[in-house]
């Protein structure tokens, strides 16, 4: 019975009563705790073992005969562990990734010697394993009847020994081959000719899928391609020039007339060491040639070429008309085949920008502009780790950052903006928050150009609508192929039974963006969401978080961020004010605070701190949608703006004090920008 309870707990299928019974059992019986841990450990290990095997097979396929010749399962396990570790650490490590592998020796002698040393090390390791196993097989002293336990131990050691022996033989064979290789006279050097097989670079690292494995030498004329938005690869040249390929990127190398690198598509980041003046590195794209003598740059190639120079100087020459422009550090330029201006623009965020301004009594518009501009600069400086290095998708703020940067007045042609936007548009739709923010972003950016993607966002939100009218965090759904004609979304499935009011208010904002872009949303979805908000308003007029499952009392108590979000949601869904909005407004006026999220229970949030900046953004939405400047006697924008100006950090960011693991300064800074810019447009 207890076994069954443990199993079902680990499978996540216990009812609340059974959970209580399990707790009781675990409290009473230490043996049950031990059994639980043992079961969980086996589960965890099985997951790892089968994952490793898959990885091993994939790796062997890719690396071909070489991996088969090694045939080292232990090696694969270690390799898989390393990969897992790398993924874990890089995901959250905000520093740019440094290459740990040395530049591969291109000179033959050094390469063969390194290979021999590596095989010798592996041989030494396997000899140690063998000795340990032989020890385990040794009969007991003095001779006596062996216990069953010893028998099985010996049997296992025997099996393992046989495997180790086979491996050892293979390694020995490889060693003799490598030694012979080393002793053989070096082939006479041939003078390098253009287009010869001289290795020009080596693939240093690969995350995700790429057309060549790490360690592969790329010869002149050969290319490298990364596949999928999350893939990433690093190529190193003999002179230590470093090339990063981000997702879905293709390049081709050539050694003719200096180093030439053609970038067919995607995003590359290059750190080029000083080149001889007569042999510069030339980057060519379908639209332009870029000449480099030593610089750091980033380039995004699609139907146009965006070039951003970080350090040094580059010159970009447009292929179509041979016009050229010098792009100094801190500037970017765009070349498209269709002509137009070819000028270098500054990467800095303009202080005034092209953003519409809101004069407001008592608020110095220039100070707000300056604060927003500094915050946007800070956002742009945040390490934008290569996509392959971060696999977790729940805590990314790409859409929120883009929305904030757009409202900060950043030119959407900015390469960072374009690079991040491309990732967002290509990533699968998986989470309600992120999809809603994406819809808001596209609606504010260019709804006509992104109508198809907006329809996909709408479909995702409609299909993730919970049965009670709320939204939960959401999961990926099948997205139909929307044509160009008028797009109407049908509801094809229901989400879980219930969700929470935080996801729900963002989903409503997302649907609004879809509808304003001309995407038809089923009226029953809108009606059911409105019904949820209006029927769950507390008698005091406020709204609560109302999450699932509904346990803690805090879950039902009115709180500022949810009440402001509720006002915005009802207004969007009803398109007019009503008594419900009036009562909520009164609650906010009675409980108004700009210093904190009204009525939030700090004890409930003792770990990560009560959410504050997200409240300010909700307040802004409620104010913008009602068109009211005041809660009671309180001018919310004036108070909020002055408070935010005082609260801004020296580096330009905003961040809540004492946050735990979740990296929120990015989110906090975005919410502050959206508040200061009054990003929400009023109802038409």
């Amino acid at each position, binding site marked *: 019975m207890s076994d069954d309870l443990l199993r079902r*707990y*680990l499978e*996540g299928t216990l009812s609340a009563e059974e*959970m*209580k019974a399990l*707790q009781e059992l*675990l*409290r009473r019986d*230490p043996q049950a*705790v*031990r059994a*639980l*841990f*043992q*079961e969980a*450990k*086996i*589960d*965890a*290990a*099985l*997951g*790892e*073992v*089968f*994952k490793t*095997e*898959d990885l091993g097979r994939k790796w062997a396929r890719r690396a071909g005969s070489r991996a088969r010749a090694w045939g080292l399962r232990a090696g694969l*396990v*270690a390799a898989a*562990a*390393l990969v*897992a*570790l*790398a993924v*874990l*650490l890089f*995901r*959250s*490590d905000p520093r740019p990734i440094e290459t*740990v592998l040395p530049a591969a020796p291109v000179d033959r002698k050094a390469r063969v010697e390194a290979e021999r040393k590596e095989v010798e090390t592996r041989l030494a390791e396997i000899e140690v394993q063998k000795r340990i196993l032989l020890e385990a097989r040794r009969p007991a002293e003095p001779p006596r009847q062996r216990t*069953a*336990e010893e028998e*099985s*131990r010996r049997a*296992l050691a025997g*099996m393992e020994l046989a495997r180790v022996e086979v491996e050892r033989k293979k390694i020995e064979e490889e060693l003799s081959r490598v030694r012979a290789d080393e002793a053989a006279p070096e082939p006479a050097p041939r003078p390098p000719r253009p287009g010869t097989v001289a290795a020009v670079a080596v693939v240093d690292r690969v995350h995700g899928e790429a057309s060549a494995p790490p360690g592969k030498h790329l010869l002149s004329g050969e290319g490298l391609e990364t596949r999928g938005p999350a893939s990433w690869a690093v190529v190193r040249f003999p002179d230590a020039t470093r090339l990063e390929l981000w997702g879905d990127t293709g390049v081709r190398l050539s050694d003719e007339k200096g180093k030439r690198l053609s970038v067919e598509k995607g995003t590359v980041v290059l750190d080029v060491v000083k080149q001889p003046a007569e042999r510069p590195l030339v980057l060519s794209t379908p639209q332009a040639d870029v000449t480099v003598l030593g610089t750091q740059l980033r380039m995004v190639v699609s139907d146009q070429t965006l070039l951003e120079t970080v350090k040094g100087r580059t010159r970009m020459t447009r292929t179509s008309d041979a016009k050229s422009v010098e792009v100094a550090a801190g500037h970017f330029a765009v070349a498209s085949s269709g002509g137009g201006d070819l000028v270098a623009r500054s990467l800095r965020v303009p202080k005034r920008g092209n953003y519409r301004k809101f004069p407001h009594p008592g608020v110095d518009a220039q100070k707000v502009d300056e604060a927003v501009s500094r915050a946007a600069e800070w956002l742009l400086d945040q390490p934008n780790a290569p996509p392959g290095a971060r696999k977790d998708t*729940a805590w990314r703020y790409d859409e929120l950052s883009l929305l904030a940067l757009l409202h900060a007045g950043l030119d959407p042609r900015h390469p960072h903006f374009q690079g991040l936007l491309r990732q967002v548009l290509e990533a699968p739709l998986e989470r309600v928050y992120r999809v809603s923010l994406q819809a808001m972003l596209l609606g504010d950016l260019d709804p006509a150009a992104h109508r198809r993607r907006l329809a996909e966002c709408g479909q995702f939100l409609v299909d993730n609508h919970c049965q009670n009218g709320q939204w939960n965090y959401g999961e990926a759904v099948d997205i139909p192929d929307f044509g160009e004609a008028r797009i109407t979304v049908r509801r094809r499935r229901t989400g879980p039974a219930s969700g929470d009011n935080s996801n729900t208010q963002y989903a409503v904002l997302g649907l609004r963006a879809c509808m304003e872009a001309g995407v038809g949303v089923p009226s029953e979805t809108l009606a059911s969401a409105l019904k949820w908000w209006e029927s769950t308003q507390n008698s005091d007029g406020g709204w609560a*978080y109302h*999450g*699932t*499952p*509904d*346990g*803690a009392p805090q*879950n039902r108590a009115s709180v500022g961020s949810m009440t402001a979000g509720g006002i915005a949601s009802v207004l969007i869904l009803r398109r007019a004010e009503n008594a419900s909005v009036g009562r909520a407004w009164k609650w906010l006026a009675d409980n108004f605070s700009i210093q904190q999220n009204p009525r939030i229970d700090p004890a409930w*949030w003792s*770990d*990560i701190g009560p959410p504050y900046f997200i409240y300010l953004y909700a307040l802004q939405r409620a104010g913008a949608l009602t068109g009211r400047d005041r809660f009671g006697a309180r001018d919310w924008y004036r108070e909020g703006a002055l408070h935010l100006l005082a609260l801004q950090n020296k580096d330009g960011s905003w961040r809540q004090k004492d946050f735990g*693991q979740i990296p929120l300064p990015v989110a906090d800074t975005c919410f502050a920008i959206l508040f200061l810019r009054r990003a929400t447009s009023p109802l038409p």
Partner: protein
Amino acid sequence: MENPRFLKHFLENQVTVKGYLLAATGKVQDAEDLVQAVWTAVWSRFDQYDEARPFRAWALGVARMEVLKWRQRLARGREVLSDDVLDALTRVAAETGGEDDTWKRRLQACLERLAEKARHIVGLRYGKAVPIEEIARSEGKNAGAIKMILARSRRALRDCLEASP
């Protein structure tokens, strides 16, 4: 990455930490999310780790903190293990001896002893998290039979692991 001591500790404790997190959360997805947070935290605090102390207990202390944070993040009514049970679990996990890499190799050896079919089904269920109903469909059996095979296989694995050192 470049620290071989850390890599060694990681290999020797990877399964224990993940198993602990699975036992503490009761959900594979949550455990997997937390595994990342825990090793990141361990890595960032590695310079505070005193080599004289057992690494496993130290790492599980970090893991326990992460579990507590996780619980506060989701505490809205979901049933989780109480504090005293969590502490007992931490103690039990910290007391287990043996290095995970060797333990895992033993598990692999034990897996080889299972019948081919059973091993395949175990792989589908625990390696790829395929739902039981789906396995049943693809194997042409009913769900009860699959459950039985899984239960027997687990029992065999447990016995095999207990029998070997």
